[in-house]
């Protein structure tokens, strides 16, 4: 026991293995079936996911009882890091991890039997049905309802901002199943087959012109009783319990992803002249990129620390909230400076053939606008840090928010 930033021999060997595999299987050769939200997760590619599955990498950290290989926590982290550095289209991966974790922790025997093997093969992917038009940061304002009907549940409601819902296999849908003493009682989580009758999944065109989010209308959608995920009426509490872990995996790859963007900007600065001298010799450009690189490194180390806490089961109270705000605001600064660096080319659309770096910077910049909102706005999360991390008094009136 001593402070040690080394990943260790096993993880380093695994990193080399992943890099070698990526070199042999270049990510850009895989077909893309959903857009990249610019989170650094790469686009949504079912074939790429299946290729990862074929390596055994999706289920490698699962307990053997569920078909896993019980590899160390750190291997998953290394996998994500290498995928992000390579710009691989691993979009669906974290959703699969989240769903698998939830199913292993509190799913029915049937859910485990039917879904886990499909997840491990890369055949089943997931979307989240949490937000609603009137329930953004204030998730408890949701109005979707599920009622029992024989052995089944029947769900009626309207979800929004569900990433990749139109191209994923199942949704994790939270709905009200009872009126409880408090608004957080009486909510339950369901695994809903995307092809169920009564589902209407409409794409939302985003500011990039692509589709990442969907709006989902559930009109008397029937769900088998054992597709309830977790304890009836306790869905919100259970969601909160896994929140920190989910948020960690939802942003862990941001540092390597940003490092990838930074490297692109460095290449651009080296290759581009302005006023007769390369951009890379401009003191302002050098300092700004150096500062951003430092922020990204600070971010990387902060997430390693959270990862260590999760691995060691040290309780996290505010750390993932702090890390997410830092990650997303750092990303916004990288994106904004990236555009500045492109000069007149910054006006071009990502798909313009004249756009430097394949339009990656424009696309990334636009998507960063959503990062500080999705999965908890920076306003909500700063309040979390203040009240949970610093024990400042709660306002008692809810918190201000973007939404």
């Amino acid at each position, binding site marked *: 026991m001593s402070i040690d930033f080394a990943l260790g021999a096993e993880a380093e060997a695994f990193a080399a293995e992943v890099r070698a595999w990526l070199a042999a299987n270049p990510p850009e050769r895989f077909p893309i079936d959903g857009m990249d939200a610019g989170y650094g997760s790469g686009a949504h590619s079912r074939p790429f996911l299946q290729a990862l599955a074929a390596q055994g990498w999706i289920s490698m950290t699962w307990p053997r009882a569920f078909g896993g290989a019980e590899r160390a926590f750190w291997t998953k982290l290394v996998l994500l890091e290498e995928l992000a550095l390579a710009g691989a289209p691993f979009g669906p991966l974290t959703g699969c991890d989240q769903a698998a974790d939830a199913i292993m922790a509190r799913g029915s025997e049937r859910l485990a039997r039917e879904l886990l093997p499909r997840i491990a093969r890369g055949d089943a992917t997931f979307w989240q049905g949490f937000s609603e038009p009137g329930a953004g940061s204030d998730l408890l304002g949701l109005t979707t309802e599920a009622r029992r009907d024989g052995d089944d549940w029947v769900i009626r409601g309207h979800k929004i901002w569900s990433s990749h819902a139109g191209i994923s296999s199942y949704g994790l849908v939270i709905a009200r199943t009872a009126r409880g003493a408090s608004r957080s009682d009486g909510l339950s989580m369901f695994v809903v087959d995307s092809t169920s009758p009564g589902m209407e999944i409409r794409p939302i065109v985003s500011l990039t012109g692509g589709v990442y989010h969907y709006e989902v209308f559930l009109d008397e959608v029937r769900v088998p009783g054992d597709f309830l995920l977790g304890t009836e009426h306790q869905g919100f509490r259970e969601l909160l319990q896994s929140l920190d872990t989910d948020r960690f995996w939802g942003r862990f790859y941001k540092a390597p992803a940003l490092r990838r963007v930074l490297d692109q900007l460095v290449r651009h600065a080296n290759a581009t002249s302005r006023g007769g001298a390369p951009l890379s010799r401009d003191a302002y450009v050098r300092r700004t990129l150096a500062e951003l690189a430092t922020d990204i490194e600070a971010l990387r180390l902060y997430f390693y620390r959270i990862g260590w806490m999760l691995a060691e089961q040290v309780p996290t109270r505010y750390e993932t909230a702090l890390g997410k705000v830092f990650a997303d605001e750092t990303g916004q600064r990288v994106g904004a400076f990236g*555009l500045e660096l492109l*000069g*007149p080319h910054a*006006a071009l*659309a990502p798909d313009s053939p*004249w756009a430097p770096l394949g339009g990656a910077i424009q696309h990334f910049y636009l998507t960063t606008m959503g990062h500080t*909102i999705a999965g908890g*706005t920076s*306003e909500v999360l700063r309040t979390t840090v203040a009240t949970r991390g610093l024990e400042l008094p709660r306002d008692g009136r809810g918190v201000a928010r973007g*939404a």
Partner: protein
Amino acid sequence: MDFRPTDQQRMLAAVARDFLDKRWPLAVAQDVARDGRGLPNDVWRELAALGWAGLRVPGDLGGSEASLLDVVLLAEEMGRAAFPARYVTSAVVATAIIAAGTSAQRQRVLPAMSAGDRFATLALAEPDGSGPDGIALTAEVGRTLDGVKRFVLDADAADHVIVAARGGGGVTLVLVDARHPGVGVSSTTTMAGDRLFEVTFAGVPVRADDVIGPAGGGRAILDEALAHGAVARAAEIVGTAQRILDLTVEHAKVRVQSGRPIGAFQAIQHACADLLRDVETARGLVYHAAWRVDAGRDAATAIAMASAYAGTRGLAVARRAHQIFGAMGYSAEHPLHLLHKRIHAASVESDRAAHLDTIARAIGLA
């Protein structure tokens, strides 16, 4: 010291607000930006009929010889409406260049431009994006123009292309007929829906009659026209940022979360206060720059400041508004992203690094 526009200026702005609200509501601006079809001819003609295309044209050539401040007040309204960039390119920059030409050139072009029958665009940037300091395409009188320019706005629809070329030992400005068979255009896509083109010139003759100002002596004309254009674009940014602010405040008043309008939360209030600061202070610099131009005072520093500041603060406004709007601002249906991209396009057009260096010299840095 006076901060009141004239009655005539107030009228101009009011008519513009009214016209644009009707003919160019945000929904139309979004449609046009999305499908890339560009500015419809009829809108351009109607705008010309209101006298706007000829605002900077001398009175004897069909224009109204208005001040740059008049242009600024109009451009603010255009920015508010997310109106395309053509107005500034043709009615401010190109007009200023042509107005520096011979009487024959002015007569040939400006009355038709005032009337909205024709418009002009500018071929300045090289394929690598270089501006006035890096002009590479050459033009010598009696020879032909052969080469490529990029970032040329609306080149497919323009009647005239003013080409900034190297020649005569300096910069030579050539007025080219956009329909000459040696002129070819190919388009690209932009974030904000502006229609930018690559223009190729093959064997286009450069006649003495086509050169605006002295051959090799076009730089001063170009710089002044671009400076006026920069003020107008900065005014557009101010107008766009004001629109974002208006929409944001409206949203903050009606969007309820956790039982109260989000505009009652301190974080949102303080963010909105910063938006107001950014819009109002940028407006001050823009008006000041225009006033200096109109008053015949040295305006180079004021213009550099207005342009650099409006760009930076305008983008800050747009970004912060995204945070306040939350998820809905991420959707293509919501107008915020277009307003954001229009500010971005206007700020990119101005060379911030060059402006800051102008300012650095002005404050005495060696």
